């Protein structure tokens, strides 16, 4: 009974957190570049990287000193990669295929 109560409470908390979180921010990958060079989001906010290009892309996230290092894999045209930024800090975003594609995200 206690566990059921806790589980229900956990679901309620997560639902409340979900509803209270800020809306995702979309960054387009088009013309071999990100749509913005710098982006500032709140902690816990999700950034959606959408491949709007005619070639395959990749999203590589590297946190500045917070230990976050994420490789989003290959994104064929039309695919997206959603990443929640839970840790505050400055993140360098780049494309593993096209080295000239870079941007920065600051999580507050």
């Amino acid at each position: 009974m206690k566990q059921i109560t806790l589980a229900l409470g956990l679901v309620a908390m997560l639902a409340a957190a979900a509803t209270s979180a800020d809306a995702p921010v979309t960054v387009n990958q088009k013309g071999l570049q990100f749509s913005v060079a710098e982006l500032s989001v709140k902690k816990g906010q999700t950034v959606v990287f959408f491949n709007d290009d005619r070639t395959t892309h990749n999203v590589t996230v590297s946190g500045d000193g917070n230990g976050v290092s994420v490789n989003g894999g290959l994104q064929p045209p039309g695919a997206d990669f959603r990443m929640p930024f839970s840790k505050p800090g400055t993140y360098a975003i780049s494309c593993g295929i096209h080295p000239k594609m870079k941007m920065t995200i600051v999580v507050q």
Partner: protein
Amino acid sequence: MQPPVARYPRPLRHIHWIVALLVMAQLAVAVVLTQLRSLAYGQAVLELHREMGLVILILLLVRLAIGRKFRVPKQPALGMPAWQSGVATTVHRLFYVLLILQPVIGIAVSWARGDAVKLIGLIAVSAPFEISDAARDNLMQAHIVNAVLLLCLTMLHIGAIVFNRVVRGVSVIERMLPAAPAERLINRTPIAIQMSVAFGLLITIAMLTGMYAISKYRDFTQMTAVFQAGEVAAANATRTAQVAWKELLGPAGAVPDRIADQPMRDLADTARSSVEDAASHSKPGDVRNALTALVGNITAATPAGAAWRLAELRSIDTQLQDVVDSESADVFQGRTENDEEAARGHDLIVVALLPTAIVGIFVALLLARSISGSLNRMSMFVRAVASGQSDGAMEVIGRGEFSALMRDMLTMRMAVEQRGDEAAAQRRAFESDRVRLAEESQEREAAAERQATAERQQAEAERLNQLERERHLLAAEFETQVAGIVESVTHTVRDLKVTADKMAVSASNSAQCSRDASKVARQTSETASLIATGAAQLSTAAKTVRGHAGESKSQAKRAVEEAAEAKAQIDSLVEATRQISNIAEVIIDIARHTNLLAVNARVQAALAGEAGRGFAIVATEVKDLAAKTRSAIDGIAGQIDQVSNGASRSVEFLQRVSARIESLEGAATGIFNSADTQCASTSDIADRVAEISVSTRSVAKNIDEAQSTASATKDMSTLVLEAADLMEERALQLEEQVTRFVLQIQEGSGGAAAHAGSVSARRPLAAAAHEPPMPQAMAG
């Protein structure tokens, strides 16, 4: 016989096939690139794609550089039509252009992406200039279009090879393949082993790939399980602790400092145990340390039997949130790492297909080339043996089936050659026997010929003897016959001379008679001419009479016709008088009735008295008128009767005149016919007389010719007499010659004396038969 193949030089062949393999691999890589999911494999395959493109570019530049040294040999025997040759040249030039252009565009695309171009990882060349975004897009598009064009050209190129082989029967691909030496066959390894190794290699690659993929899948599964049991479980436990702690703090998060009750202590225990659970699942590191510290902080902030301070409780809530955030980031990162690992497993399978396919195609080509090459070699060998041109050595290397088969064929060739030698020896022996038999046969034939010659000579001698005997007989018989003939000729000549004399006399008489007859004929001809002239004049007169008679006949005919017409007119007049007579009778009848009426009227008038006086006068007048009418009518009737009688007599007269005229017409017709007949007769007489005149002239001419002929006959009889004298003389000469000939024959056979005696004895007979020629005077 196939013309020799003008093969490409070896360097050009090597470059061609390497470039062909690389182009096919590039097309496969381009397809593989669209199927990859992991960044690592994507980068690796892309790098491979770039480096292969660079190698293609270098090989093509080398090909162009050595093109002057290694020229493509001409092969006119290919016999391509002009259109096909033009298409082939165009396709090859397009290949060069596109194959050089494609790597150049690829380099530009790499530079536009910000990558440095590396050659086998040794030399890296960065972009020497900035390439705009628009140019980059266009370059990428051109790279894709160029690849499609290359694929189309490749299909056309391969299709042309198949077309030439199947349709035209020309294997143009042979020009790009090395020439197999005709005197050597290499089949080191049996085909079964080759195929086993090839398929084993393919299966091994596939199995290794599969095993590696299975291993990676196992690692992925294990890693996922560890991840689930580690970071995910810790995150879940931390989340549970956070939920319990937030419930402890209450909705407002403002729990007063007080002694905790049992529910609060339960919530605090739940949070502490969950944090402990999370710490036990988390990996060593900051998060585990934070969780361990958090357990101590929770214990410190929730003392038993003492008041819990709100600030400490809120601090623990903040610490829990920090740990949850860190764990969330770790879980997300772990999940992306797991996804990348799964993508690598997927990409490994996709990429492994590429070398498997290439190796498979390569092995298949090698095997096909090896098998077809060996079969071609053996086919050439068999054809050479069949045509008797295989007398050279054949080097056979290896222990493969084809080598074994070639060795068997060599053994067979030796056996065939040995049998050929034996057959040659047999032929020589047979030839020797044949020559010997021929010589023996010739000797036998010579002996037989000699014997036959002797027999023929003996027979000839006998035949000559027989001929000699027959010749004597024939000479005697010939002499007798010739003597008879000479005698007959002599008699004939004599008769001929008599006849010729008679012909001369007759000819003289004929000539005289002919001259007389010719004179009479000329006189007759002249008389006939005079008669002909008279007959012609008579004919003319007869024609004139005939014309007058014809005219009389026509006049008489017309008179008869006119008389008939007059008779018809008179008949119509008689009819008219008859009708007038009838009318007169009617008028008489009317007059009689009128008179009767007038009498009645006078009676009535008399009865009427004075009143009828006038009427009586009228009746009297009417009665007088009727009497006058009767009288007039009677006069007219008399005139009519006279006219009718006159007409009747005229008709009778005309009938008589017509009969006379008809008789005159008959006479005229008779005169006409007689004159016509006379005219024809006189013409006939004139023609006959003219013919007689012509005939008499012809007779006179013939008589003249007969006279000439008689003169000629006389001359000819003179010649005949001379010829008869000559024949008589020749007959005597012939008799003498025959006598001499017979004597010579008889003397030539050894019995000349006897025969000469017999001929001399018979000569008086011949001489007696001969009479002297007739005197020439008799012939005249």
